[in-house]
């Protein structure tokens, strides 16, 4: 039984645009000058998918692709213009309050905590609003405080927390009521490496232990690689890819770049049939075409030269995503 089901879901917004001479936008054909022209934007345009309980799904797409709109429909904040949604057996927009008890949400850019209250009081308010029984609350709080290292922060008002601290507080608040489903919107945005790792590890353990279903919206490929068994890519409100990460990569002719720091500056090397595409002092860049072997290249560089450092640059997720969409548009 799928825990999240979408069937032909659409969301349209009517946007009023003022036709203005200085922007070069053409005046609406029927309207008078200065009249606002209405255009319908299809933020989500026919989404059909389902998610099984216990999955961690990465929900990717460029800005404005419809990710947040989807999450908002799944939580009942927005009412879909067409199609059918079931989450945990409920219709989100009709049973929003009942669904709220089964769902936890973390917005990376916005806190759900109370700004002026200490973290402890915020958690206590969450407990009362969600009606979590005292023993369960105590158990969950102890566990979350331990996992997220919140012990020293409990008496600090939320407004005084750093971004990373606040994010951990938000994560704890979203999980105090044992939700079946957690939506995370950019949970690692703006976090340092250590906090990112802590958040990812935490999500993994919660998913493993409680079987919590996680839907993760992110631009960070690291989040996806570490956590997601399944990746969905959305663009222009449509599903452009649905599969695992390897499948996502193999779909795209992705070039990888090997950056080598040699011990001494050398002229551009030619190794394993690949010529350095760029040099900068002792640093040289090698572009490996899609399907080419990295292992050969690296082995031969290291065998023939003294190397002080070596890194591999994967294509950015944004590039992968836009490539997929362009392919999708071309292929129909």
């Amino acid at each position, binding site marked *: 039984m799928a825990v999240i089901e979408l069937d032909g879901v659409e969301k349209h917004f009517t946007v009023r645009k003022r036709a203005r001479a200085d922007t070069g936008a053409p005046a609406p054909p029927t309207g008078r000058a200065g009249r606002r022209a209405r255009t319908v934007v299809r933020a989500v345009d026919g989404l059909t998918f389902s998610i099984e309980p216990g999955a961690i799904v990465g929900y990717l797409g460029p800005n404005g692709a419809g990710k947040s709109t989807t999450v908002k429909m799944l939580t009942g*904040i927005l*009412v879909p213009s067409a199609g059918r949604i079931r989450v945990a057996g409920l219709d989100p927009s009709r049973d929003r309050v009942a669904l*709220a008890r089964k769902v936890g949400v973390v917005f990376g850019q916005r806190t759900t905590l109370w700004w002026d*209250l200490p973290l402890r009081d915020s958690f206590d308010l969450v407990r009362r*609003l969600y009606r979590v029984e005292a023993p369960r609350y105590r158990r969950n709080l102890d566990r979350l405080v331990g996992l997220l290292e919140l012990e020293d922060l409990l008496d600090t008002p939320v407004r005084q927390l750093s971004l990373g601290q606040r994010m951990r507080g938000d994560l704890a608040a979203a999980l105090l009521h044992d939700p079946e489903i957690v939506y995370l919107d950019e949970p690692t945005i703006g976090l340092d490496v250590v906090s990112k790792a802590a958040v990812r590890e935490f999500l993994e353990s919660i998913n493993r232990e409680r079987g919590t279903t996680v839907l993760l919206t992110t631009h960070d490929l690291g989040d996806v690689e570490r956590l997601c068994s399944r990746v969905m890519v959305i663009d222009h409100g449509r599903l452009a890819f649905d599969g695992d990460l390897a499948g996502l990569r193999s779909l795209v002719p992705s070039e990888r770049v090997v950056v080598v720091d040699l011990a001494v500056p050398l002229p551009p090397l030619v190794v394993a049939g690949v010529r350095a595409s760029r040099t900068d002092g002792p640093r040289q860049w090698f572009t490996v075409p899609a399907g080419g072997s990295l292992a050969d290249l690296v082995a031969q560089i290291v065998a023939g030269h003294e190397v002080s450092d070596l890194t591999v640059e994967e294509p950015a997720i944004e590039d992968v995503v836009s490539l997929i969409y362009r392919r999708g548009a071309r292929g129909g």
Partner: protein
Amino acid sequence: MAEASAKLADAMRAFGLLCWAWTRAAWQYPASLLLLTVGQALATTLDVLAIVVIFANTDELGGFSAAEVLFLYATTSTSFAIADTLMGTVERLGRHVRSGAFDVMLLRPVSALVQVAADTFSPRRLGKLVPALAALALSLNLLDTQWTAGRILMVPVMVICGTLIYCGIWVLGASYQFVAADAAEAMNVTTYGGNYVTQYPLTVFSSEWVRALTWVVPLAFVNWYPALYVFGRPDPHGYPAGMQFASPIAAVLALVAASFAWRAGVRHYRSTGS
């Protein structure tokens, strides 16, 4: 019915919890809280002084005595103060919509209206209530009327109905902000403006005003019609005596309209970009 009352109890519990949390947050700046409360109370007291000044120059206003005008003032002010305590901040809905805070409210298992109403609750909201109640007590003392059981009962009934009418108008106005996020000012005309108009006998205004306050924005039912019953006066504009008992109907109508408008607003809520 049982389900509806359970929902109401739920909403009231959540309102209490949130108000308590906000009160504790307000306590972080106790001096500010104290000064704002006193300021609020002083501002309300000045209104009473205005009535005193008027009656220092004349014996009656629109055909009504000082005690009667004070009663009109006190009943509408009490209703307004209670409604302001309960629902006053719903006029900030537009701000919550723009900042995205309304999204967060919709994620919690509590009525969004309750959360908006309790938002940034501060005990200073009670600053208006104390002088209003004092004025009410004073006017009941001064009022020269035959205190029958019906008239005594009418006083709490009209205050409650008045509160509900103000709440209804507040929520109606707030619902309009789902469409136009900057409509708070337009709404203040009917709430704060309405409070001001109903502080005086409607005989000082033209009959168009009375018609508008009866049929368009039902503020005349907050205090004017039931007060005529308490005073034992015939209606100066010739409306039937039944109007004097119609405040509960007006209150129910205002609440039903508000409830429809709010639901429609939430269903058409568009959220913000991110």
